[in-house]
Structure formats: C-alpha cells, structure tokens
C-alpha cells in the first residue's frame, strides 16, 4: 500500500466534485492510500500570479509545507491548474535560495521543499499494470480522445518530464489499460480557455468548440480530461457553444478517473457521471453492451 498526499483543490470540493468522487472510488483498487493535506488552502489558481509573484508561490507553498510536516514525500494534485501552481512553486523555490528564504519568512514555517508534486497522469501511469489487471469490464469499443490541455505536461522543467511535452502518451496508456481505444487527433494539447470561462465566455466557446470538432472528426465517442477547468469548459460550456452556433450535438466529457472506474465495473453513479451537463448515456450504454444508446436509462 503506497501512501500519497492528496491536494484536492477548490474545484474538487465544488463544481467538479465527481472528479474527487471517482478518484476516491478507484484508489482502493490501486493499492494506494490518499492522505489529504491537513487544512489545505487555495493555490491561488489563475488569479494570484497576475497580482503578485510571491503570492503565487507562497499560497501553494503553505500546502506543501503542511504536507512536509505530515511526513508526506509526495503529493498528487488532480486539478491540472493546481498541479501547475504547486509544481511551479516547488520548482522556483528549489532554484532560488532568496525566494526560499522569503517564503519561509512569509509562512513562518521551516519549509525544506522536500515534497514531490505529481499529476494524476503521473500517478496513474505508474499503475497501468494494476489498472489492466483490475479492469474486469474493459471498455471495448469505446473510442476516446485523450485531451491534455496546457498544464499537465509542460513546461518540462516544472513537470520533471514524466511525459513528453509535445507528444505525450500517459493518458493514452491509462485509457488503453482500461480497455478503451485512443484515437489520433490534433488538438489534444491546445488550450481550452482556462480561467476565462466566466469573464470571457466567447474565447472559451471559440477554443473549446475547435477541440470538440477535432475529436468528433477523429471518431471519438468521448473526450477524456484530467482537469476540472478543462471539464467545465468542454462539458458545461457545450450549451453556450451550441447557442452561439459554434457546435452541434453532444460530446460526453469524462474524467480519466471515471474511465478507470468504469473499467473496474464501478457503478456510474458512484463515479459521478450523473453530475455532468452533457449526458454520458451513450458511453454507459456502449459499456452495458447495449446495441442502441437509446436503451439506457437516466444515469444518476
């Protein structure tokens, strides 16, 4: 049983709680224990770094410092934005003794920057053999477009290079272990519009609809993501894309943890599939082996 620190981040306790639910549903099968960081606080996301660089380092550092005090050698941050903030803070502190000193002064903690920061893909990639072995209901016939977005694999100085920044494969490996078939497509590293969802919806519609269209053209049944912001921009914002004439129809958006969970035969409701805005019935019907998606009932 490996023990890993868990930084849920604000989204996983709010708008994207199904990501948290599906992760917690699969970790027992992965022989992993998640230890939540005590009294964790917001990483500052896309707002702190535009105001103060120090704030953008100190907010994540508080969480890493607590993890260190808890004796955790590594921490997983499933949200790609949180992951980027925590990993960037770690990277910048390790290369700058002045900054390290300032951060300790601000935190009033004796932080030694000893905690490794892992993305969800890095953790799951290390478990592909187990995932394959536990996939009692492999997702045969499910074609998935693995979407990385911006922050999961770049820049490599920050990620430590667990995957290739220009041609990554970790998410495809995980989906294959779950029995799904990844499609080849072009826009898997494009940006979804990130934090502009509320303040500049038009940009998110433009960027997100291009991603959906490319996935559809490649024959995908669903897009797989590993970030709550990507999920919300591609799932929740599909309606805005339709109403603004940029998109037609439906493309289910799944968290990578839900893909793994489905292959383990975990109930879609436990995995939070019913919390999505775009119906995932087409996906679950396929898995049930039903010939027609119409045969599926309401999920959740």
């Amino acid at each position, binding site marked *: 049983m490996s023990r890993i620190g868990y930084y849920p981040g604000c989204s996983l306790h709010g708008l994207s709680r199904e990501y948290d639910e599906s992760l917690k549903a699969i970790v027992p099968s992965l022989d992993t224990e998640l230890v939540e960081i005590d009294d964790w*606080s*917001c990483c500052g996301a896309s707002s*702190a770094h535009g105001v103060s660089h120090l704030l953008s380092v100190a907010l994540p550092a*508080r969480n890493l410092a607590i993890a260190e005090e808890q004796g955790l050698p590594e921490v997983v941050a499933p949200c790609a934005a949180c992951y980027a903030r925590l990993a960037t803070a770690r990277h910048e502190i390790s290369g700058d003794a002045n900054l390290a000193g300032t951060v300790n002064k*601000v935190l*009033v903690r004796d932080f030694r920057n000893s905690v490794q920061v892992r993305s969800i893909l890095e953790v799951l990639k290390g478990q592909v053999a187990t995932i394959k072995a536990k996939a009692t209901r492999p997702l045969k016939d499910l074609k998935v477009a693995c979407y990385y977005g911006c*922050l999961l694999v770049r820049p490599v100085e920050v990620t430590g290079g667990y995957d290739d920044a220009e041609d990554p494969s970790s998410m495809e490996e995980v989906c294959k272990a779950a029995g799904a078939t990844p499609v080849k497509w072009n826009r898997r590293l494009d940006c979804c519009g990130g934090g502009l969802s*509320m303040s*500049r919806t038009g940009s998110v519609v433009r960027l997100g609809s291009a991603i959906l269209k490319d996935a559809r053209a490649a024959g995908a049944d669903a897009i797989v993501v590993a970030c709550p912001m990507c999920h919300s921009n591609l799932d929740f914002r599909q309606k805005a894309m339709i109403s603004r004439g940029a998109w037609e129809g439906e493309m289910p958006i799944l968290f990578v943890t839900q893909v793994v969970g489905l292959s383990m035969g975990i109930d879609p409701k436990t995995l939070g599939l019913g919390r999505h805005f775009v119906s995932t019935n087409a996906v679950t019907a396929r898995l049930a082996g039903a010939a027609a998606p119409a045969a599926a009932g309401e999920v959740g």
Partner: protein
Amino acid sequence: MGTHEHSHDHSGPEPLAARVERMTGLNPAKCYQCGKCSAGCPMAAETTLRPHDVMRLVARNQLERLRDADGMWLCLTCETCTARCPNGCDPARTMDALREIFQGSGEGRAPKPIRAFHKSFLDQVRSHGRLFEFGLILSYKLGGGPLFADVTTSPGVMARGKLGLAPHRVKGLQEIRRIFDACGAQEEGR
C-alpha cells in the same frame, strides 16, 4: 513617455526591460523575434499585441504601449509560448510580470470582467482560505461581471449537487491573511 527622459540617472523609474529582467531573471532582449510563441498562442487571434510583440516592446521599454494593450490580460498562462520558444525566453512569465507591474501601480487596464473576476476570486480566498464558488459568482456579478455569467442560474447546477451554499473556512486563516499582506496583495480600493 517623456517622463522617463527627464528623470535623473538613479532617482528615475527603472526602465521596463530592466525591471522585467529583475522579476523574471531573464533578459527580454534575448528574444530574436522568431514569432514561434505567437504561432502557438491560443489568444493571438483576439489580442492586439501577440506574445512576440510584447517581448519586443518590453525589450524597448515601451511601457505606455503595453499598458494600453490587452495581451497580458487575456493571456491564459497556458505556457505554450514558453514551451515552444527555441531561445529560452519565457513570454508567459513576462506576461505575469507585466500584470504585476500594472496591477501594482493601479494602471492596469484589464478588461472589466477579467479584472472583476480576479478580484472576486482573490477576495474569496483571502476571506475563506479556499475558493467559495457561490460567493465568487455573486461577488463577480456585483463587481461588474456580465450577467450572463450563468453558472448559478443555469438549470441543473443545483440539481447536480455542484454548488455548495456555505463557505468552508480553513483553520489557518490568520496565516492566509498574513501571506496576502506580506505579498502586498491587500484588497485594493478599485
């Protein structure tokens, strides 16, 4: 622009390029304007200044032109530019430095909804230690965000159990406030 010319050697404001270099640790003049950063930038289609334009203007100390531009406010920090730059420049970090400079001097001309969003976001974090999404949306709308920021009114958000109605307050709130204060990121009266 004239103000810079008349300033004395050491008492005048630090030139922009030097200031950015001090903040980022990278010399903006290193950029050789190949444009690779802009070719990959998802927001280049919407901004008046693209990342390589920003780099050039920083290197040439064109503070005013940058201040009036929207590029750094629309920047998504997607790091595409930084990852693709063949020359080790860091346009994404440069955008951050510019935001920090303009925000700090109160000269930021960020589009109103974007400024309102970041302000509401940080106010939530300062008050609770975590983002309280419902509070964010309310304060964002009251603070000038567009009313079609429709997360709360959108059918199904509540039914899906997505939005908590009460904030969670972290225990270490004193520490959070201290971090904000030490970083000079107190609530601004704007």
